């Protein structure tokens, strides 16, 4: 706290020592107390005020609007209950969009993460010019998704595209990227993979570098090869990071909009909704058909789906990737077992 005692002379002189005046004790103490008590709230207030205005209020208001038939001209709504939700769930387009979104999401996240882990493992070796390779991997991350979409849309062109040119020249034949739903999903997933793989690689690489190198030493002594080491040490140690990466990929992947939007000129998900996604459909309902009630209901449905999938991911990742690398730590069940035994032993000694 503030002190009025003469300062100990052992302290190094400060440039402003000369101008500091003795202060009125009571007032400055009070000020300091207020300062101490209220400053933290003052510092976090910009975030919370802004979040209340542009985050919390819109979320709640979206829920309100989703129960309304919104009139754009009067700019107010009429309460109609769950009708908007029922309307959406009865649209075949919605189910197509849901299927497309999941298909694109799986086609983008699964190969992306597998490749990212693989490349991270390569980067984790004792390579020369580390920073150069890390930067090289990250280049696509700074390219705007719209730009990536336009580039790959031209590369995947059905008639004249580069990819079909290669496929034809090696005798496979052209693939109808803009006609067949599955192939359009592959093309769009490729754009997502292109942009995000390097980013995820670096995150996983960071987690790999944090793994204690003694584990590998011990494994080498035990005669485990690189592949065995990867599956028994590296992968289990990556678990928290993997969960983080998978959850972020889920949140981002289920919201996909930019890439399918520019996959053709019309931007409405293809002539037969081959690559219509939920967000694309939301945009079309909200700003194409100008029905805000339905768009709001769709936003809430999307949010619920994201929450559910995120939860599911968490459970799956937890069960699939076990903590094999950290054998010293006991599992929950073993801990409970030990605690029980200890209690029993304690009781016996007391009795």
């Amino acid at each position, binding site marked *: 706290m503030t002190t009025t005692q003469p300062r100990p002379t052992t302290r190094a002189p400060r440039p402003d020592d000369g101008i500091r005046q003795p202060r009125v004790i009571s007032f400055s103490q009070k000020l300091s107390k207020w300062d101490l008590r209220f400053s933290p709230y003052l510092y976090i207030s910009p975030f919370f005020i802004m979040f209340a205005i*542009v985050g919390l209020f819109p979320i709640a208001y979206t829920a309100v609007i989703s129960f309304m038939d919104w009139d754009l001209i009067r700019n107010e709504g009429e309460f109609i209950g769950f009708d908007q939700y029922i309307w959406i769930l009865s649209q075949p387009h919605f189910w197509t969009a849901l299927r497309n979104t999941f298909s694109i999401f799986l086609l983008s996240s699964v190969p992306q993460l597998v490749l990212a882990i693989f490349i991270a493992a390569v980067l984790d070796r004792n390579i020369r010019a580390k920073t150069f390779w890390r930067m090289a991997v990250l280049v696509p991350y700074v390219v705007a998704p719209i*730009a990536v979409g*336009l580039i790959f849309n031209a590369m995947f*062109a059905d008639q004249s595209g580069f990819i079909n040119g290669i496929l034809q020249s090696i005798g496979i034949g052209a693939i109808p990227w803009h006609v067949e739903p599955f192939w359009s999903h592959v093309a769009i997933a490729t754009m997502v993979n292109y942009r995000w793989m390097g980013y995820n690689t670096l995150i996983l690489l960071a987690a790999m570098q944090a793994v204690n190198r003694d584990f590998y030493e011990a494994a080498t002594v035990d005669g485990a090869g690189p592949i065995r080491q990867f599956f028994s040490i590296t992968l289990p140690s990556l678990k928290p990071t993997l969960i983080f990466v998978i959850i972020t990929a889920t949140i981002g992947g289920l919201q996909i909009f930019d890439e399918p939007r520019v996959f053709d*000129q019309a931007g409405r998900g293809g002539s037969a909704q081959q690559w219509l996604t939920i967000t694309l459909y939301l945009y079309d309902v909200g700003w194409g058909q100008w029905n805000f009630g339905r768009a709001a209901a769709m936003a809430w449905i999307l949010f619920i789906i994201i929450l559910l999938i995120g939860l599911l991911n968490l459970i799956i990742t937890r069960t699939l990737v076990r903590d094999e690398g950290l054998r010293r730590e006991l599992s929950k069940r073993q801990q409970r077992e030990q605690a029980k035994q200890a209690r029993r032993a304690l009781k016996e000694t007391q009795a």
Partner: protein
Amino acid sequence: MSTIGTTPTPLATVEEGIPNSAARRRGARTRRIRGSRPGFWTYAILGAVFLSAAFPLYWSFVIGSGDSTTLRKPFPWIPGGNFFENAASVITNPAVNFWPALWNSIYSSFLIAAAVVITSTLAGWAFAKLRFHGGPALLVFVVATMAVPQQLGVVPLYILFSDLGWTGQIGAIIIPALTSAFGVFWMTQYLRQAVPDELIEAARVDGASMIRTFWTVGMTAARPAAAMLFLFTFVGAWNNFFWPFIVLDRQNPTLPVALSLLQSNYFVDYSVVLAGVILATIPLLLLFIFAGKQLVSGIMAGAVKG
């Protein structure tokens, strides 16, 4: 070089066979035992990754520097001479508004990144280093907000901004982006381990006010993390499409919105479209060349703690 790793036995001799220089020994300490300098395949894989990252950009430059027939050729590999012509037709295209879009992207991204750095550092400092009632719970709340999808807010925000008469204004994309939950979390994590509590106590004992402590101790310590947060936010704001596409009108776009307009004609000349893509990507590529190291180490640092 040593052959450790290919044979499992000589464990105790990591340093063996390595020339006796300080730099080498430092390398040996961080290296994994099975990894002496990796061989050809490692670099072949990395080279392939690098090529697949760079190729689409190079290819779009090839198309963007050709004429409208280039795309129809089976394998265009060599850039043509028409890049400036194509770029000029992007810039002069009245539907695209290239210069306003470029300027909008630059200053909105800059303002957003600066504001996010300031608000996040302030909040991160409070969460990391100041004890106050409800602090930990509020931090959990901040992190939880990261899971909320953008779509959940767009309808009311649009209504709000159209009530204010801000639709079509660049302010409508700046205001909602002034703070970031990720930024607060990032700064909290960083400041927690970067600033020892004793330093703050010392400043307080010396009679510094809270804000002065923040300014002299916190801001100084936060500088590296702030630089990374600035870069991240800048790239994110620059590339953002969904909300600007909704709320901005076509006369006053940002670069991604303007790019999407390039393709919305009935007849699309891809040499012009891809010249536009290259034009719009160059500023961020330049930024990446100068600050890519920071960005990389930022991602690496953030992930270790995350």
